[in-house]
Every structure is written in C-alpha cells, then in structure tokens.
C-alpha cells in the first residue's frame, strides 16, 4: 500500500465515480443503471398496468386525470463488474518508475473508485496469457486482495494480448467494464483482441502506459538494443536522423492502435510514467468521461 498508493491520494479520489458508457446488467444492485427497469429511486418511464404489477407503482395521479392505469418504472441500478487487465509482460518493467508500478497504481486507484461505487472489481494480470487472477468481488476487502496481487507482480515474458483477451473472456462470462492497461509495445496486431472485447459488449477503456524512453529515446551513438521481452538484439548507431525516424515509426504505431480503438468506440488514453498519476486521472480520464 505504501509503495503503490497512499491514503491521501485515495482521499482525493473519493469524489470521483466510475462511469459506464453502456448500461450493464449485473446480478446485484450496484451503482450503475441497468438496461432493464427495476427498483431504484431514479424514475425511468410509464407503462400500462398489467395484472400482477405491484400496485404501489401505479401512478394514481395520472389515473385521476386520464382514468388510465399506468405503472411507473424506475431505472434499476445494478453492480457492474470492473475487470482490470493489467499488462505484466517484461516490457512493463522499464521506466522510472516502472510501467508496472504506474499501471498498478492506476489500477488500484480506479479499482478503489469502483469498489466505493459498490461494483465488483477483478484483476487479470497478463503477459502472453493470463496470470494468476483476482476474481471480481464487492467490498473494500477486495482492495486488499488487489493490492497484494499487484504488489506481487513480477513483469516478465512476452506480450500476447490476443491470448490474454481470449483467456479473459473464457474466465469471465459476464460482460462489464474492462480497463485494459498496457504499454501496447508489442508487434502483434491488436485488431483481434479489441474486436473480441467489443463483440462481447464489454465497456472497454484502453490506457497506454509508456516510459519517456519509449516516446523519446535518449540513446546516442553506438548502442546495442535488446528487446526486453524476446531478448533479440541489434547493433545500431543512434543519431539525430535515427531518432527522428524512430519518432515517426513510433507515432505511426500508436496511430494504428488508436485508430483500431476508435473504430470500436473504445476510449484510448496515453500517459507516461513521469506524469503524475493524479494529474492523469483528473485531466485525462475525467475529461474523457471515464470518471465523473
């Protein structure tokens, strides 16, 4: 807890609320409006009375004016499972602080908000597949489980988002809010896993966590580059032209990812580990409609 989040930080987040863009139906009452009417204090609509309806919901004022029995319906607020898919591949151990730490802190912060919103929160670390998961549950005790699990994460292995999403959807039958946190620094095509997430109806939020070195490398001169995930190596002389070409190549890759998410209407956020987390939450996620 002390290493990932501090209490002051969490206190500053209590006024925020996790917003689902789609109405998700959960099994339990929660803080999210369900796609079907139900019992809550929020009025939804009128419908004709049918026998068997609870007479408590007949609007007698309307009957008095129109002599028509109408039953008031209310928005049913149900809990929505919030799934955190956190990338724990080897590439996430780079950065200062590491991308893993940043991603963990982000997941804990958002999970804390979700738990406070009476949602169930689950954690699904992944690399080339899902790792040990924390199934979605209610209550602040879940926060402790999340914290322990994230504290135990050791970033390693290559990234396979497609396999991770496939495993995730196999393990979780219920759609919900999927917060996908990754650096997306893999050569694989993200089309398939994104399509999978969209197809099941998950309300997906993609957050890309990068190291500043990923965006603007400081390497100069002759270097030996090693892929942190595959251990592949190459010798290269890095000069200004190389860096410029890198920036173009990296920008094209990010554009392709962003375009893929946007085509699925999935909000896509990018941050770097040197950026304050609170600033990112308030300025990007809140402004982007993820939080309210």
């Amino acid at each position, binding site marked *: 807890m002390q290493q990932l989040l501090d209490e002051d930080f969490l206190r500053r987040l209590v006024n925020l609320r996790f917003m689902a863009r789609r109405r998700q139906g959960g099994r339990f009452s929660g803080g999210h409006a369900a796609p079907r009417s139900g019992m809550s204090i929020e009025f939804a609509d009128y419908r004709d009375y049918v026998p068997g309806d609870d007479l408590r919901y007949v609007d007698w004022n309307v009957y008095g004016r129109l002599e028509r029995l109408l039953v008031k319906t209310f928005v049913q607020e149900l809990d929505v499972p919030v799934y955190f898919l956190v990338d724990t591949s080897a590439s996430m151990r780079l950065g200062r602080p590491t991308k893993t730490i940043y991603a963990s802190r982000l997941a804990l912060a958002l999970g804390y908000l979700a738990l406070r919103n009476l949602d169930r929160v689950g954690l699904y670390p992944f690399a080339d597949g899902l790792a040990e998961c924390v199934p979605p549950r209610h209550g602040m005790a879940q926060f402790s489980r999340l914290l322990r699990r994230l504290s135990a994460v050791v970033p390693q292995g290559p990234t396979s988002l497609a396999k991770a999403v496939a495993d995730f959807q196999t393990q979780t039958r219920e759609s919900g809010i999927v917060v996908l946190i990754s650096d997306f620094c893999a050569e694989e095509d993200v089309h398939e896993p994104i399509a999978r997430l969209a197809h099941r109806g998950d309300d997906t939020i993609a957050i890309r966590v990068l190291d500043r070195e990923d965006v603007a490398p400081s390497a100069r001169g*002759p270097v*030996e*580059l090693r892929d942190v995930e595959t251990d592949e190596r190459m*010798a*290269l*002389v890095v000069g200004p032209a190389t860096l410029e070409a890198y920036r173009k190549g990296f920008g094209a890759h990010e554009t392709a990812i962003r375009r893929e998410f946007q085509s699925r209407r999935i909000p896509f956020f990018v941050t770097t580990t040197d950026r304050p987390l609170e600033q990112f939450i308030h300025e990007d996620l809140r402004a982007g409609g993820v939080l309210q």
Partner: protein
Amino acid sequence: MSLALPGALALLGTVLLVVLFALLRTRRRRREVATYFVWRELRDSLSTRAQRLRALLDPLLLLQIATIAAVVLAMAQPLIASRRAGFATLAIVLDASASMSTRMGSGLTRYEAAARRADEILSTCPASSVSIVLLSQTPRVLVSRESNLAAARKAVAASAPGWDGDGSASDLIRGLEAVGGPSSFEQIVLLSDHSIDDLPFPTRLETFNEGKNVGLTAFSVRQNPDGAGVSAFVELHNGTTESRDLRMEITDEKSRTSVETYLEPGDTSSYVVPFPTSRGTQFTASVAAHDAFPYDDVRYASLDRENAFRVLWLGKTNRYLAAALDSSAATTRVEAGPADLTVVYDTTLDALPSGNLLLVHSNVRDVVTLSARATSGVAAAANDDPLLAAVHPDDIYAESLPLVDVLLPYRSLLTAGGSPFILRILDPGRLILVLPSDLTATNLPITVDFPILIRNLVSSVMPQLPTAASHWTLVGSGVALGSAAAGSAILDPQGHSIALLPEQRAFFPEVPGQYSIRVGDTTKTVSVNIDPRESVSPEPEELGASTTSLPPLSAQSSERHMAIWPLVAAAFLVLLAAEFVVYRCRVLEERSLG
C-alpha cells in the same frame, strides 16, 4: 612556424590515451527497449557508415583533443612568422678587424660576405631604426639610429675593414653605447669571424671564418752585442690544412737574408735568423705564403741604432777603404767633432788627431814621415797582434813601400822587404794604425784580407754597444709625438705626408708599415703591424659559445611567440570544466530520479 620548445610536442601522446578512453567510453552500450520492433525497422535504413563516423566524432572527444593540443602548443611556444616590420630597433655589428680581410672560398673576403649578410638582413628583415657599428679595437659607428634603410645599406656597401685587432666585449659595449646602449636594441646581430665571450646581453652571432692562413705571428730584431749585425726572431704559423715549404726573408734598408722552413698543418714555429751583415734600422720580415690573408705575410720592426760607428775622414777618399769600413759597421761620416775612428788618407797633417786613428799613406808633421820608395815584396807577419786575426800575409804583395819614420814608439805588424807594411803606434788609450804604402801600389784592396783587417780594426775601436732590441706597435695604437706636434712630420709607409694638427700629441697609424716621424732634428722610425692574433682564426668548434637562444632571423619575416595559445588553452580548459560540471549535474539528477 617553429617551436621554442619542440620537446613539448611529446605530450601530444596523451591524445592517444584520451582517444583510447573515448573508445572505451563509446563502446556500444546495451539498452533494453520495449519498442524493439520500431528500432528494427530503422536499422537497415539508418545505420550507415556516415552515421557511424558522426558517432565517432564525439563533441566531448573533440573538445578534449583540442584542449590537449592547445595546452601542448602553449607549452611548446610556437613562433610564427610575423609580417610586421622586423624589429623596432636593430643593431648590426660588423667585425671590421684585419682578419675580416681574409678571402674565403667564394672569392669574397669575410667582410664582404658579412656586409652582404647585413644588406640581406636590412632588405628582408627591415627595422624601424637600425644602427651599424664597425667593431675592432677602435670601434666606429657607421650608422646611428637610421630609419632610412636604403641609406644604411649604402653605408654598409661603402664600408671596409680596417687593420685593427679584434674588438673585445668592452669594445662592443663601447660601440653600442655610442648609439644608445645595448639595452635600447630589440635585436643585436654580430657578424664576425669569431665569438665574443662574456657579453652581458644577448646577441645573434653569425660567423664568417672561412679562409686558411699562413702568417708571421711574431717578429723582432735585436742588435748583436758585438755590433756585427742583428739577430731576427720570427714566429711562423701554418693555419692551413696542408704542409707548407716556406721561405722567409729578412731585409733592412740595404741587405737581406733568408731562411727556408717546413711547417706541418697547424704548427707554429719560432726561428732565430742571424743577419750579421745588417747595418740598418728598419727591418721587414716576409714569407711567401700565397694564402687567404696576405696581410700578415709581412711584418715590420725598427731598431734604434744611435751608436752607429762615427768616422771622420781626412784627406782623399778611397772607395776600397770606404767599402771596407761600411761593411764592417754601420758607419756614419762625421765632418768634425768626436769620432770613433779618424781616417787620414793620402795627406799631410800638422798634428796627430786625437782618438783612434788610421793613417794610410799620410804624413803627420814631426810624428810620421814618409820618404821615398825603399823596397817591395810579400808581406810577412811580424807578430800575432789581434788586428791580424784571419789575415793571411802571404796573400798580400806590395809593389813598393815608402820608408816611414815614426817618432813615437811603434810595433810593426806586417813587413815587406824588411820595411814596416802595417805598424801600430803604441800610444796608450787609443789605437793608431799606420799603413805607409799607397794602396794602389799594393794588391791589398783586392784581397779578402783587407776588409778583414779593417773589420778587425773597427772591432777593436768599436765602443761597447747596448743590446738594443727592435720595437713596433699595432695598427690603431697611439704613437706619442712628444710635447707638441709643431714641427713634426710623419711620412706613411708609402711616403705620403700625414697632416698633423698643431696641438696633436699622438697619431694613430691606420695601415701597417714603416712610418718616419721627424720631431725636431731627430728622425725616428715606427714600425706598425697588424695584431698577430688576427693571423689565427678560431676553429669552427670554438665558435658558437656566445651564440644565444634568440630566435633565428627569418629570410622574409621575423618570428615571435604566439601569445594567444595560453589563452586558447585556458578557454578550452574552462569549456572542459563546464562540460564536466554539466555532466555531473545530469548524473546526479538521474540518480535522484532513479
């Protein structure tokens, strides 16, 4: 461009260390990346040779190399050719001593070569102000602080060496003091055939000492104690690289003698040359050397012989007798007064003259009386008187002899036919020799015995002579004229009269030779020679001792220290320090972030 301390360039080797460190530092650094796939696309297209080259051109490495180079250059003190007008003040000292007349292999004399070098310096290394001093024992200012270099060059071209000896350090200082002092010159160039030791200021010495010489390095004459001629002392030096057969000749006003000798290269030999027939007072020694410096092949000496044998001649003259007297001693005819010998020839005197006396066929009233011819015959020795030393009476024949009647005691030395042929009157305190016969009536004048007899006579009556030695002086040395020059006259060796000022007390001969100085009624000969030290040139290895570390004169320009290099080195060091500070700050910042 040249370097004052070329050895400092060895420090450039530290560049290799820096490059080595740089190579170690720039060895490929391993970096883990998450975006390997992006880099891989760049590898083939961007990792070109040009980029590798640019990578090697590390600005820090270039800065370090530049710093080392600047520091090394600052230590090496580069001298760059300067187009500025040579020197602000330049002094050229031309050696004008006699030895500078030595002819070199190029056909030029040393002085001509030095003058050409001076002209070259003036034309290619101009100065704002130039002074030219002719250095010798009597230094002279040729040009004093002249800004018109054309005029200075003209003066150099018109100058010539003298016959003085080499100038010393004090002479040089004296010459430079006349044009402002040594310290007033930025550069002093000494063009000479020898170095000058113990100079208290830096000079640039350029030497011109080609030319091999054989010369007389010493000459003196001493009168023999018996008055019979002189002995000459000669020293001869062979400064060439080959053995020489040499013939020396000693002459006076009338006669000469010679001696031949052989000298090995570099040898110096002394000779005592007998000159018994010399009756002169002016002597010349010469050697036929045919060398590069002929002016020391002749040397002069003079001998004061005031004790010349004084002869008072009475009666008729006789050339045989006069020749015999002159060959016996340096005779001086006196008309009256005291004489060392009175010759009475074929005459009659009323009284016997005082002093030593030679009576030849003469009468002296009441003392010596000649009468008619009495006899004839071959001479015979009557006794062994010293006057007959080496005289052979058998060679002497008298055709007729007069009878002689001598009232004073006498002794016959030779007789002929029983009559006295030569007799000696015994008068204590003086010598009186009587030859009664007419010389023309005997064969005496044509015999060798006659001059021997006269020499014996002269030797007997010659006063005791001091062993006078010759004297001479050096060119440029003062010769005292006495209390006043008024009435004095000086003739130079060519016989030209030298004008004297009324108040002049001395004169300074400028060329070697015999000078005649007449002061009042006396005439004196002054022999003047060039300094014997001018005959011996220093060996090349003996030169250069006084050569200073002054930068060499450039043919086209002067050289000066580049004062900018220490500043450049300091600037680079500051840059390097700044780079280090920035680097450390960055490292500390990264550590704090980590």
